[in-house]
């Protein structure tokens, strides 16, 4: 595998170009993902991402399974935020079936979505620092907070990461008593944790020197490559689906959308911390306005009772939400039967990955690793 490429330039000190495969078996590629990198010394000349190691045929499986049957599989797409995957799939099917979702279920969905955003961004900040070389300290601080929220998910949905909690027309079970004030306590404890992380990281000279002006993503390249999520907003494009689609009840909450200016790794890191602050604001408002009431619509309850003969009217629909990693969309086509005819997932990580090479050219090997870390990809979603 040492096929070296001889440069044809004038007889300079013809150092061979080293082709290194930062391969599936590498400590910091966030899962099974390979980058074929051609190095001249330490700087990157060419970079080709190689994916598909974790392809589990998710979309083909969904075509011969009942509508609700593929709900637990959506947890395995982006295993860091399973609740938002469920919400996106439920939204798409509800759009096609025309089921309305009761008030309390809408609030529960918003609470679960924002808690997942907190979990995802904390873990991302931790792993980005791990790629930078901080020996696991930020990751373990982040996991300390993440564990508390995962315990909340476990008490609500039964499992920490594979929640399978959403049903078409609402949620599976109502919140257990004592959930709300326990969640309030965690949400109030979050700002001190964010301050601690900021004191540890944001003004750290080494971090600033390593992350600033590294892997700059220009505004128009981001828009043309249809990048979405914090990566896009860090380059300064104001595009947040919660504000644009106003799906569910997001228009009742007032929150801001943080935008970066330069679009480098530092911006992507700090935009996510600001987004966490906004999610906390939404959560506080949602806890205040949470009212009693049914948790699942009547039609949804019947469908949940016997999913195998739940029929969805013919037609196609595209439901999308602002997942922590970007615009997560489900495109489903139904022939009116109990099984979807076509089922496609628009995974944000996969599309954000396409611009990895443009950002990495000219940088060092060490930068390529943290640029990959800052895009925040999860291979379950990339390979589906």
């Amino acid at each position, binding site marked *: 595998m040492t096929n070296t490429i001889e440069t044809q*330039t*004038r007889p*300079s*000190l013809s*150092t061979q170009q080293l082709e290194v495969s930062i391969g599936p078996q590498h400590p910091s590629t966030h899962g099974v993902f390979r980058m074929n990198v051609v190095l001249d010394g330490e700087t990157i000349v060419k970079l080709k991402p190689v994916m598909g190691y974790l392809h589990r045929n998710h979309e083909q499986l969904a075509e011969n399974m009942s509508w609700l049957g593929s709900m637990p599989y959506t947890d395995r797409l982006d295993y860091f935020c399973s609740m938002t995957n469920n919400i996106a799939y439920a939204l798409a099917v509800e759009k096609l079936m025309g089921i309305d979702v009761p008030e309390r279920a809408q609030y529960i969905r918003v609470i679960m979505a924002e808690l997942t955003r907190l979990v995802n961004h904390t873990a991302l900040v931790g792993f980005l620092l791990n790629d930078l070389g901080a020996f696991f300290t930020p990751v373990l601080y982040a996991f300390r907070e993440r564990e508390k929220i995962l315990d909340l998910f476990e008490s609500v949905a039964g499992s920490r990461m594979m929640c399978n909690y959403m049903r078409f027309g609402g949620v599976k079970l109502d919140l257990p008593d004592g959930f709300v004030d326990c969640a309030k306590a965690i949400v109030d404890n979050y700002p001190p944790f964010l301050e601690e992380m900021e004191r540890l990281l944001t003004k750290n000279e080494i971090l600033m020197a390593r992350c600033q002006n590294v892997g700059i993503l220009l505004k128009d390249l981001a828009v043309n490559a249809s990048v979405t999520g914090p990566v896009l907003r860090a380059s300064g494009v104001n595009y947040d689906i919660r504000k644009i689609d106003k799906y569910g009840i997001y228009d009742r909450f007032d929150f801001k959308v943080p935008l970066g200016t330069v679009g480098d790794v530092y911006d992507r890191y700090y935009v996510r911390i600001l987004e966490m602050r906004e999610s906390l604001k939404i959560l506080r408002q949602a806890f205040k306005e949470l009212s009693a009431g049914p948790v699942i619509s009547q039609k949804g309850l019947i469908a949940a009772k016997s999913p195998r003969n739940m029929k969805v009217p013919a037609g196609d629909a595209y439901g999308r939400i602002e997942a922590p990693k970007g615009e997560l969309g489900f495109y489903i086509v139904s022939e009116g039967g109990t099984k979807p005819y076509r089922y496609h997932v628009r995974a944000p990580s996969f599309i954000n990955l396409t611009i990895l090479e443009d950002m990495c050219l000219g940088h060092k090997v060490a930068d390529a690793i943290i640029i990959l870390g800052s895009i925040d990809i999860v291979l379950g979603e990339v390979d589906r």
Partner: protein
Amino acid sequence: MIAAFYLISVVLIVSAVLAVSLRNLIYCTLCASVVFISSAALFFLLKADFIGVVQILIYVGAVATLLLFAVMLTKNLVSRQYYVGQKRKWSYGIFTASAVLWVLIGSIRSQTNLAELVTADHQLSVVSLGKEMLTAFLLPFEVASLLLTAAMIGGIVIALEEKKKSS
């Protein structure tokens, strides 16, 4: 003390021969650094501590690494000796070297009044060495520093020159 001298000089000679005759250049530089270390050991034996330490610091620390880098950059690790036509040159080499050796040994043996080891242990303190260097030997000291800067700049200019044009 006596055994130490003979042991070290045997190591010295053997590694010198190896350093010159091995085919793989990496092993050559390795044996060269063994030569430098054992000659530093000889300096310690001769009670010249300061020179022994300077020898290790400069030769093993810097020169050996420089040699290794040069070997790595020029990439012909196993020097392909085209011995086809030059068999005789190889023998010429031995002939001249042994001629020089014979002359030297002859001159050493002919010397009768070689100085005997007068004082068993006289130790020149580093402080007096330093004073001497900056008083009696001030001129060579300044010239040496001048020479080092010139060598550094020259080395960089020669090696760097290509990089500027091509990048």
